[in-house]
């Protein structure tokens, strides 16, 4: 069963300096109860991809004709990109899909109490009475481990610590019982001991509520601890996709391998830190062919700067749906 399917998502931004490709032909599916990680660095398009699921990208975004995002709801499939008015979009925004952001302070209105914000969205999306909405909100705050939930309900976001705010954000996002939760770097702004708590909480909640989650982060360690499968993105392209164990233990794309080698590992203090050579190109100077060829240690001139590699299943692990987009893949003579 599929909850969400994204097909050939291509998104460009119209800017003064020309059209910038933010997402280039990305496809994936998520089942209910599944956590899909999207990992990538600045400019990889991971956040833009996630925002597309709710059509939250700015007015200058241009989706290609072939782009399709389909959300399977009880009343039938919803073609997200065809939704136009704010009213139509309510079905996904805050309805079937909730989102939590990196900086919870920016997501709560500063002059409205946390409780009022939670009640408002419940009245809007679930047509609850004020009393019922209040009861559910307090219950959700308790559920995410906020002590004295009744008191917090009447407080403002600035009165809570960073970890508490992120918990409140999660409580608010889940109170509408979304089918899909998008979490954009939800633990990045948190201290590491608090991050560990929030990761545990999110895992418990997935198990309990069974919704699908798109978990966006730059941190491969966080992905390893939370996701079922993971997509690695670079400059708007998906370069590798597969079950999290396969991708981390047997990375197939040179970029994924580079990312893992660049990461400091506490288990191997003597291992040198190997940077991925070069810099991430500016979006205005998008490389031709394979977008990674300018930094790739095994790129071949005349091939990688010309041909765009398609996502290809790995021969060794076809059964586990592990694929990558690299011309060297499945080519025993590449290193020749």
């Amino acid at each position, binding site marked *: 069963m599929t909850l969400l399917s994204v097909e050939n998502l291509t998104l460009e931004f119209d800017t003064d300096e020309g059209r910038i490709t933010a997402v280039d032909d990305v496809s994936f599916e998520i089942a209910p109860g599944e956590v899909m990680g999207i990992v990538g660095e600045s400019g990889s398009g991971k956040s833009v991809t996630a925002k597309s699921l709710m059509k939250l990208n700015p007015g200058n975004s241009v989706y290609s004709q072939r782009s399709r995002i389909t959300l399977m709801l009880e009343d039938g499939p919803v073609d997200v990109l065809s939704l136009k008015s704010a009213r139509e979009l309510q079905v996904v925004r805050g309805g079937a899909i909730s989102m939590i952001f990196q900086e919870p302070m920016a997501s709560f209105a500063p002059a409205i109490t946390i409780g009022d914000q939670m009640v408002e969205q419940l009245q809007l999306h679930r047509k609850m009475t004020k009393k019922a909405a209040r009861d559910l909100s307090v219950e959700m705050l308790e559920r995410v481990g906020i002590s004295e939930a009744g008191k917090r309900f009447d407080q403002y976001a600035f009165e809570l610590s960073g970890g508490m705010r992120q918990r409140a954000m999660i409580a608010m996002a889940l109170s509408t019982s979304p089918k899909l939760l998008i979490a954009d770097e939800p633990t990045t702004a948190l201290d590491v001991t608090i991050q560990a708590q929030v990761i545990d909480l999110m895992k418990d909640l997935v198990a309990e509520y069974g919704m699908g989650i798109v978990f966006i982060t*730059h941190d491969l360690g966080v992905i390893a601890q939370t996701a079922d499968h993971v997509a690695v993105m670079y400059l708007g392209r998906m370069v590798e996709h597969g079950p999290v164990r396969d991708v981390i233990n047997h990375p197939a794309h040179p970029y994924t391998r580079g990312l893992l080698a660049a990461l400091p590992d*506490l288990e191997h203090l003597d291992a040198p830190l190997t940077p991925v050579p070069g810099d991430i190109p500016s979006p205005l100077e998008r490389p031709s062919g394979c977008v990674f060829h300018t930094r790739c240690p095994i790129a071949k001139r005349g091939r990688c700067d010309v041909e765009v590699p398609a996502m290809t299943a790995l021969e060794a692990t076809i059964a586990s749906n592990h694929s990558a987009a690299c011309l060297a893949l499945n080519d025993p003579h590449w290193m020749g």
Partner: protein
Amino acid sequence: MNDSHPDALSPGIGDASFSFEAASSTVPLISVRDLAIHYPVGGGLFTKGMVVRAAEGIDLDIPRGAFYGLVGESGSGKTTLGRALLKATPITRGSIHFDDGEVSYELAELGKAELKDYRKRAQLIFQDPYAALSPRMTVRDIIAEPLEVMKITKTRAETDERVREIAAKCRLNLEHLRRFPHAFSGGQRQRISIARALVANPRFVVADEAVAALDVSIQADVLNLLKTLQEDLGLTLLFISHDLSVVAHTCDHVAVMYLGRLVESAPTRRLFAGPRHPYTKALLSAIPSLDPDHHSKAQKLTGEIPSPANPPPGCKFHTRCPYAVEICKTEEPPLEQTPDHHMVKCHRWKELLYVS
């Protein structure tokens, strides 16, 4: 406490087979004794006279030539301590002694001329390479500014030569020097920041979260560069970070702070092989493992980091410590040092050696 634990406490203590000591000399460049830094807060009717104890009772020796790591979460006081060492924030109590072999300063008692000289010897690398560089200056001018402000070079030719020299060391070429910062990526900008910090040939550099804003693939490059420069130029570096794994890979000595207190410090290997403070242990186990099948068994901390404006009594960590007992709630533990350069501030660290 019962008296069942012997004096030979654990593997490692006083054990000659452990030679983790840093390759650098043990002559301290910086010696900190009983340092306290308090900030007044408020000024309102009810908050008048309140202070935040950003650092309290800090003892710290940074050996010459060390790559010294300082780790902590928000509100730990790590940035405050770094600023105090640069004489960029007033000291409430205690002493900071600087001795690079040429000059010897007591930072609290610096005269005007001495402070000017100290500014040449001690420099800061900032976290955010996007905010730290003026968008209106060329890279050459950005790097040259400290030389001009501190009147270190006499002629423009001399300045240019010095700029080119340090730029080359930071892998920036002549073409780069003519451009403005906006043309550069995060990693390149951080290399410009580093060149600027090093152009006056300082002996001591504080790098405050110098790689925190960088992408992973770039971060390793900047870390390797810092390490090379530190070795080539014989620098002493204080590397402030929230990221234990980065510190583990680059520093030869690590100090851990929590709520304004230094809770543990040791040579890196020793700290990671045998952390003694419950907070350090928790911090280590909280790092998400890259192995999807490895779920940390170690105690996860509950609760929040208390506000530094209203810290708990006794040991500052007792509100979150799984091993806290009565004494922890009332009495602040002393910072104890063992002969292996391992310092720990915990009432129960000896008992806890046997708790995995």
